[in-house]
C-alpha cells in the first residue's frame, strides 16, 4: 500500500514535469507542422538565462525567470523568422537546421559557462511530507505551474483573438488565409509561445535536476517521445502521454529497478507506432 502511494505521488509530479516540457513541442507542430529539435535548447536557454540574471546581475528569482522566458521566446521567434520561414515546407530542412541550432547552443554554453553545472535558484525552499514521502516545495510548485500553463494555453487559444487565429491555422491553413489571417505571423507567434513554454519548464525544472550544456538532449528526447506517443499536434495527447510516462517510469523504478525506466519511452514509441501509427490522440497525418 505504501509503495502504491509512493508511486502515486512521485509519478504525478514527474508526469507534470514531462507535460510541461512537451506541451510547447506539440503546439508548434500542431500549428506550423514542424518538428523543432531546438525545443530542448530552449529549455536549456531558459535555465541558463535565468541563472545569468539571478547570479550575475543579482536580480530576484521571479523577475529573472520572467526575463529568461521572454528572452527565450525572442530567440525562438528570431530563429523562426530568419532560420525556418524560407524553407518551412521542407521537413528535412527544418529538422536539420533546428538540430544544428541545438548543437550550436550547447557549444556556446560550454564556451561561456564551461562544463561545470550551474545552480539555478529555486523559487521556494523546504519540503513537506506527502503520503510518507518528502517532496520539495519546488516540485509541488512545478506541478501546479504545469497545470496553470496548460490551462492558460487552452484559455489563450480558445478565448483570445490571436489564439483563435492560431487555432484556425492549425485546423485549416487555407481557410484561415481566406479569413484574412497571415499564417507567417501566426507561426512566429506560436514559435515564441512554444519557446516560452520550454523556457518555463527550464526555469522550474533546472533547480530540481541540473543546468549543464548537454541538458537539452534529455528534454528533447522525452518531449519527442511524449508527443509521438500522445499524437503529434494534440495537446490533450501530450498531457495524457506525459502523465503516463511519468507514472510508468516511476513504477518501473520502484517496482523493478532504476536500471530500466529509461527503456520505457523507447519501447513505448515502437509499440504505439506499430499498433496505432498516429499516436493515442493523433489527428494530423504527416
Amino acid at each position: 500500500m505504501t509503495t502504491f502511494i509512493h508511486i502515486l505521488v512521485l509519478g504525478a509530479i514527474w508526469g507534470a514535469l514531462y507535460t510541461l516540457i512537451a506541451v510547447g513541442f506539440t503546439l508548434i507542430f500542431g500549428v506550423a507542422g514542424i518538428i523543432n529539435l531546438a525545443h530542448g535548447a530552449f529549455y536549456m536557454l531558459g535555465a541558463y538565462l535565468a541563472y545569468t540574471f539571478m547570479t550575475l546581475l543579482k536580480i530576484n528569482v521571479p523577475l529573472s525567470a520572467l526575463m529568461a522566458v521572454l528572452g527565450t521566446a525572442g530567440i525562438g521567434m528570431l530563429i523562426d523568422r530568419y532560420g525556418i520561414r524560407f524553407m518551412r515546407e521542407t521537413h528535412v530542412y527544418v529538422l536539420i537546421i533546428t538540430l544544428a541550432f541545438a548543437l550550436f547552443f550547447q557549444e556556446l554554453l560550454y564556451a561561456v559557462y564551461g562544463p561545470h553545472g550551474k545552480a539555478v535558484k529555486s523559487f521556494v525552499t523546504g519540503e513537506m511530507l506527502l503520503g510518507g514521502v518528502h517532496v520539495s516545495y519546488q516540485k509541488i510548485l512545478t506541478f501546479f505551474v504545469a497545470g496553470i500553463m496548460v490551462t492558460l494555453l487552452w484559455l489563450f487559444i480558445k478565448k483570445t483573438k490571436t489564439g483563435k487565429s492560431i487555432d484556425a491555422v492549425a485546423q485549416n491553413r487555407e481557410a484561415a488565409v481566406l479569413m484574412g489571417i497571415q499564417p507567417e505571423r501566426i507561426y512566429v507567434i506560436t514559435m515564441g509561445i512554444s519557446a516560452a513554454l520550454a523556457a518555463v519548464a527550464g526555469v522550474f525544472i533546472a533547480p530540481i535536476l541540473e543546468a549543464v550544456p548537454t541538458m537539452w538532449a534529455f528534454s528533447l528526447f522525452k518531449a519527442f517521445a511524449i508527443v509521438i506517443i500522445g499524437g503529434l499536434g494534440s495537446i490533450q495527447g501530450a498531457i495524457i502521454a506525459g502523465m503516463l510516462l511519468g507514472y510508468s517510469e516511476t513504477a518501473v523504478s520502484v517496482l523493478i529497478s532504476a536500471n530500466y525506466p529509461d527503456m520505457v519511452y523507447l519501447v513505448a514509441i515502437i509499440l504505439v507506432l506499430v499498433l496505432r501509427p498516429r499516436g493515442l490522440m493523433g489527428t494530423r497525418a504527416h
Partner: protein
Amino acid sequence: MKPEGLFGPRVLYRRLLGLSIFSAVVLLVPVVFSDPYDLELLFLCHYYVMLACSWDLLTGFTGNVSFGHAFFVGGAGFAGALLNLHLGWGPWLTLPIGGLIAALCGLVVGSFTLRLRGPYFAAVTFCFATLLYKLIMIRYEIFGGEEGLSGIDWLMETSLGNYYFSGILMLAAILFLYLLSKSSFGLILRSIGENEVASEGSGINTTFYKIVAFMISGFIAGVAGAMYGHAQMHVGPEMAHDSLSGLVIIMAVVGGMGSIIGPIIGAYLLTLANESLRFMGEFRLLIYSSAVVAIILFAPKGLLDIITRGFRRIVGQEK
C-alpha cells in the same frame, strides 16, 4: 532536387568523369600527403563518406529522415568485433558479415517503419539505435559497456594500408550507390518520396523497394562500421549513439542530400574542418558548430548545389 535533366546521358557521363577524377585523386593523395597523421585523418573521411552516402540513399531519395544510422554502424561494428575477438575471424570475414548483419537490421527497421512517415519514422529509427546503445551499456559483460571492446585485429599494418583499404571500399560504395541512384531503382525511390500512394497505385511494390533501400543502406554502413572497428582496434558504445546519427545527417545535408555526391563533400569538409580547428583549443567546437549553422542557413540545398551553380555560371551554360 528534380530528377529531370539529371538523366541525360551527357550529364551522367560528365558526373562519371567527375567521379573518376575523384577516384584518381583519392588514389594519388598519398604521393603528396604521406604523413601518417594525414592518412589517418583521411581514413576517417572515407569512413564518414560511406556513412553519409549510405544514409543519403535511404533518406535523400524517399524524404524520410532516419535518425538511427548509428544502429547499423554500431550493430555491425560490435558484431565484427565479437566475431574477431571470440572466433578470431579476420577483417576479410568480419567486414562482409558485419555488413550482412546490418542489412538484416535494415530489414527489421524497414519492416517496422513501412507505414510511417516524417517524424514518426524519425522517432522509430532513433529508438532502435538508442535501444542498441542501452543494450551495450546494460549487457556490459558481452559488449564492454562504456569501455567498449578493444584488442581487435588491425585492419592493415600501416596507416597507408588503412588508407587504401578504406579508400577503395569507399570508391566502390560511391560508384555502386551512384549507379543505383541513376537506375530505375533510384527513380522509383524518388517517386515513392514524392507521392507514395500514387506510386503504389501505379503498380509499384513500394514495400519491396523501401525495404531493399534499407538493407543496402544498412549493408554499406555496416561494412564501414566493421572496418572502423578494425582500423581503430576498438569499438565503443558511441558507435551506436545518437550523436553519430546526428553527425551523419548533418554531413549529408551540408553537402547536399539526394545526390550521393553531395554527402561526399559534406563528410570530407566536416571531418577535416573539425580536425584542422584543433589549434583553437576550447573554442574549436563552438566555431565548428557555428559554421555548420551558417552553411545550412545560407546553403539549405547543400554545398553541391552552390558548386554546381557556380560551375555553370563559369562555363556559361544553363543546362
